[in-house]
């Protein structure tokens, strides 16, 4: 259950549906609550509104998560560009390169979910150029046909993900993914959790 008091209950802004689920999972794990969720219309939508979210973060805790993608060399450069003056209750985190690397980081759970051998999953997901692509190609090796069909796009579709990619990954995040195990392999996730923990302590 979401804590009811204002303290410890975050407002959030995210790029998409999957991002929200990941964030929810991370917060539950830290005994923190999620209140309102904004965005879910891609990265540019967030960038245009980040000043507004930051303004509100003077009054209540906020978490904003964006993918680094290829927009900047490192998270620090992106943060400097987006949010030069961070409000004291704003937690602005950058996933390197994409949120999918946080999912890949729980190798054991992912291997179990896809029914593949653990050693196929890259050990340092933060160093991957295109984590989503890696996830999709791991999907090609999935043991169950319906998971393969959901994750892998038909070549003629012209898309990079399969028809049920989002819902399969939602299932993975909600039922299998363990943030505490994943942070061992992903520095950007570890930092995100540490910062949220600090902020949570400040609020309680």
């Amino acid at each position, binding site marked *: 259950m979401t804590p009811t008091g204002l303290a410890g209950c975050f407002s959030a802004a995210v790029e998409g*549906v999957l991002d929200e689920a990941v964030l929810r999972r991370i917060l539950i794990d830290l005994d923190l609550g999620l209140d309102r969720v904004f965005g*879910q*219309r*891609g990265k540019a939508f967030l960038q245009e509104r980040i000043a507004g979210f930051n303004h509100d973060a003077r009054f209540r805790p906020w978490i904003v998560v964006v993918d680094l993608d290829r927009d900047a060399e490192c998270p620090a450069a992106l943060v400097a560009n987006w949010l030069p003056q961070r409000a004291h209750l704003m937690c602005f985190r950058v996933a390197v390169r994409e949120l999918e690397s946080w999912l890949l980081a729980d190798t054991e759970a992912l291997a179990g979910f896809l029914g593949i051998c653990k050693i196929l999953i890259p050990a340092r997901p933060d160093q991957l150029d295109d984590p989503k692509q890696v996830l999709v190609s791991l999907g090609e090796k999935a043991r*169950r*046909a*319906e998971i393969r*069909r*959901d994750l892998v*796009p*038909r070549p*003629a*579709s*012209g*898309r*990079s*993900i*399969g*028809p*049920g*990619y*989002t*819902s399969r990954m*939602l299932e993975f995040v909600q039922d299998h993914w363990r943030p505490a195990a994943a942070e061992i392999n992903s520095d950007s996730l570890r930092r995100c959790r540490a910062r949220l923990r600090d902020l949570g302590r400040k609020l309680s």
Partner: protein
Amino acid sequence: MKDAASSTLIFRRLRLENWRNFTQVDVDLQNRVFLVGPNASGKSNLLDVFRFLHDIVSVGGGFQEAAGPQRGGVTKLRSLSARRYPDIVIEVHIGSHDLPNAWEYELRFSQDNQRRPIIKKERVSHAGVELWTRPDADDEKDPERLTQTYLEQINVNREFRDVADFFRSIRYLHVVPQLVRDPDRSIGRSNDPYGGDLLEQIARTPEKTRNAWLRRIEAVLRVAVPQLKELQFDRDKASGAPHLKGKYEHWRPQGAWQNEEQFSDGTLRLLGLLWATLEGSGPLLLEEPELSLHPEVVTHLPQMFARMQSRTGRQLILSTHSPSILADPSIGLDEAFLLLPEHEGTTVRPVRRFQQIVSLLEGGLSLPDAVMPFTRPAKAEQLPLFATR
């Protein structure tokens, strides 16, 4: 591994001539079909082709009904752009993942001088081999035979009953909340695509299945309508009329029960949508499923449908004006179709054929960003001026 989804039949190709506002259509279809276009571009007319095929083989239907009274006769069906009085042609290719070219069915028709719909050609092929084509020798002897398709005749369609069964399995849904609440205003209590028979359909489902499905629907509804706590099926003790009742959280400790007459439009539409995804295994036709729903709920519809399809392989053909639906990044450029009214009737093309859309997507735009400007009325900015005088 074998699974149910890989043997499910779907429409793989659709070819039309002179059907309603389409002079020529020839498109390959995938497991999902998204039809987008301006108002009055013919999205519903395109869905109607599949309903027409369903009506030919449905009980109480048949070719004469489907092309006659049900649709106002051949003259109403024929494209206005057509010159003189050409034939209407419907050709569909049907297949599964395992057997892509299982069946072909072609129907060419016009009307005779008594204005009855009359078959000019009917053809069925199986695995690329033609089983038969009409008119045959019997038809020459007795032209009256050409008022009925072989498809609808149980005594001759044994060889290709799969095709008839497949057409019969097509479901169309466009729930009109007012008709769910007041079925007496609907066209009938069975097979009403506007939801007039939704309660009857639910009532007809065996109790065990019905309860299992209502539990699943309840779980989804609770997400979209948090104050709704429980959903139950009920029959009026006096009249026997079926009802749905929902328990709403309330200031009273026990909450309050309300029946479908008090459900909101959005609740009823979502309920109908969820029921349709559970019921049946044939192609599901949906008309603007986004209506009355919160954009946040709409955003999740494509993935909800994807899960349904992953389980059953069932084809989904829907029309939409909703950017939230098109925003799902897995929608293939061969799954979304743009309907554009042109001088010679509306054209139907997959978005991958629009060079500008493809290039905008490569440049990082989302599908709705790239597609919606094609579907807006050319002079939309004039609309606000309507009320100035």
